[in-house]
């Protein structure tokens, strides 16, 4: 598995992957933070229409600098979904999978190496995003008139907690990308299915299912990023997400193990 990981890391060090993946995540993180802070008013503050409303009090709390990231975590998740899906589908579309499986026929090792490498990549991307947001959130808040006095209280704990929750949530989106990528083996179809589900299908289901919608993957992953919501506690969100991940991994492993390499 270590060999597969080292091999995968060489391919992930591809500058275009690094720059586009991390760069896009940082850009979206900044965008989310800026929108939430700039649209803040004395009453209700900004935020996506379908998400929990963000109040000025929330923004001025100790973890206020991460409220934008937490509430728009789906955007970062989509980047992770795309990167993870492409990591799988590009092996098939390029034909590289032939060389990889021939060199290491124990396919679970290849998959494990890929998952660990992508986990590292995603953790790095969210770390850079968190760091950039940490640096720029205060000046933006200043311009938007959002108080930041409480932000420095217990800063280290806030940053570590915010980073871990954010990373965990984004990684879960990545696993969805891995799953869809393995099933479809097509970058375009994988991304379309992922985005379609997350941006459209889950929203429609949310309207139909009402309170039961909190059990859907997107809602559970989002609840982890915000440290729990009124609908779902953090612990429950982790357990529900874990169930989705186990199923996704099981299907991915079995599919990869059994499928012929015809690429």
């Amino acid at each position, binding site marked *: 598995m270590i060999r597969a990981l080292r091999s995968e890391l060489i391919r992930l060090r591809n500058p275009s992957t690094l720059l586009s993946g991390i760069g896009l995540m940082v850009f979206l993180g900044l965008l989310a933070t800026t929108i939430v802070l700039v649209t803040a008013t004395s009453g209700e503050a900004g935020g996506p229409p379908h998400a929990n409303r963000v109040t000025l009090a929330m923004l001025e709390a100790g973890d206020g600098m991460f409220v934008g990231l937490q509430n728009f975590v789906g955007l970062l998740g989509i980047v992770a979904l795309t990167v993870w899906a492409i990591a799988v589908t590009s092996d098939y579309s390029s*034909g*590289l999978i*032939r060389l990889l499986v021939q*060199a290491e026929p124990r396919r679970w090792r290849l998959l494990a190496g890929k998952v660990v490498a992508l986990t590292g990549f995603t953790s790095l991307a969210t770390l850079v995003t968190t760091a950039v947001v940490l640096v720029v959130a205060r000046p933006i808040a200043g311009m938007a008139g959002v108080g930041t006095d409480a932000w420095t209280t217990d800063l280290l704990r806030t940053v570590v907690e915010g980073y871990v929750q954010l990373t965990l949530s984004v990684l879960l989106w990545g696993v969805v990308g891995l799953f869809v990528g393995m099933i479809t083996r097509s970058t375009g179809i994988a991304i379309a299915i992922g985005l379609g589900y997350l941006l459209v299908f889950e929203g429609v289901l949310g309207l139909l299912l009402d309170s039961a919608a909190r059990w859907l993957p997107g809602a559970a992953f989002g609840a982890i990023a915000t440290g729990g919501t009124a609908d779902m506690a953090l612990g429950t969100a982790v357990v529900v997400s874990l169930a989705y991940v186990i199923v996704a991994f099981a299907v991915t492993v079995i599919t990869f193990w059994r499928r012929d*390499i*015809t690429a």
Partner: protein
Amino acid sequence: MSVIHTDKLTRRFGDIVAVRDLDLEIGAGGVVGLVGPNGSGKSTLIRVLLGLLKPSGGEATVFDAPISHPSAYAARIGALIESPAFIPSLSARTNLRSLARLRGISNARVDEVLEVVGLRDRAREPSKRFSLGMKQRLGIAAALLPDPELLMLDEPTNGLDPAGIVEIRDLLRRLGDEGRTVVVSSHLLSEIEAACDTLVMIRYGALLFSGPLRELVAQAGECIAAVPEHLEDVERLAAVFSSAGWPARVGDGRVVVTAPASTSAEVNRAAAQAGITLSALRPHEVSLEEVFLRMTGEQSGDNGRPAGAIGAEIPTTAEKSAKAKVSA
């Protein structure tokens, strides 16, 4: 020692039988040519042996290990299957290093194989800048990475210029002479003829011939080439020979008759009796291409494959070669 052994190996894709009850044995050392029309099952056979495809029936071993456990022999095999596959934005060296890491191979070996295929000076360039021929060389370098005892190359000379083809041919010969087993599939029969000691010929996934190349050519029988004085007589001349009981075929303004050189006088007489004057009559050395076309029905595999019942039409030679042994 048997490097590859198959016993009634079969691989189906739905109704299509890509490899059909294939019995094959390839010994250690030498260059083995794997030939057949397009769609005859060459690539499928290689993929099944490498563990990329699971067989639908039968059994096979590579280095005496069952193909259901390819990890038992993966480290001893290098392969190039169809077009070479690399990450375009990564350099040739980085692409190979990625594969070397997976196999636990040192970076020094990466530079060695780049040297062997003549890409050492271009190693830093992204593979997307490579021509088809250079990509092919890079693919061969990847196959050579594990210093393999068995090398399986599917169309290795694709995209190479004539000088490149000769280089690769020499490389294959050298590897074969070193005691490695090189299985090379190609539709360039002249290349197979020049590089290979032994031949495996398949059509519709079934074995047509397996054995020394010279044996196959000898099996085709002695031939005589008859050139009519007037080109327009060539078809009529072929008909004359056929009606006299000699298998004849037309090509390049001449008629090639399957008959021993000792019958030249009779051949000449038959032509004269039909009123055709011959401008040349000489012994004809049969090429692999001629044998191939004769055995495969002179038809492209893509067009000739019968729908559904693939492999239903198995020539007599296949029956004769039911269990042919290739000892390279």
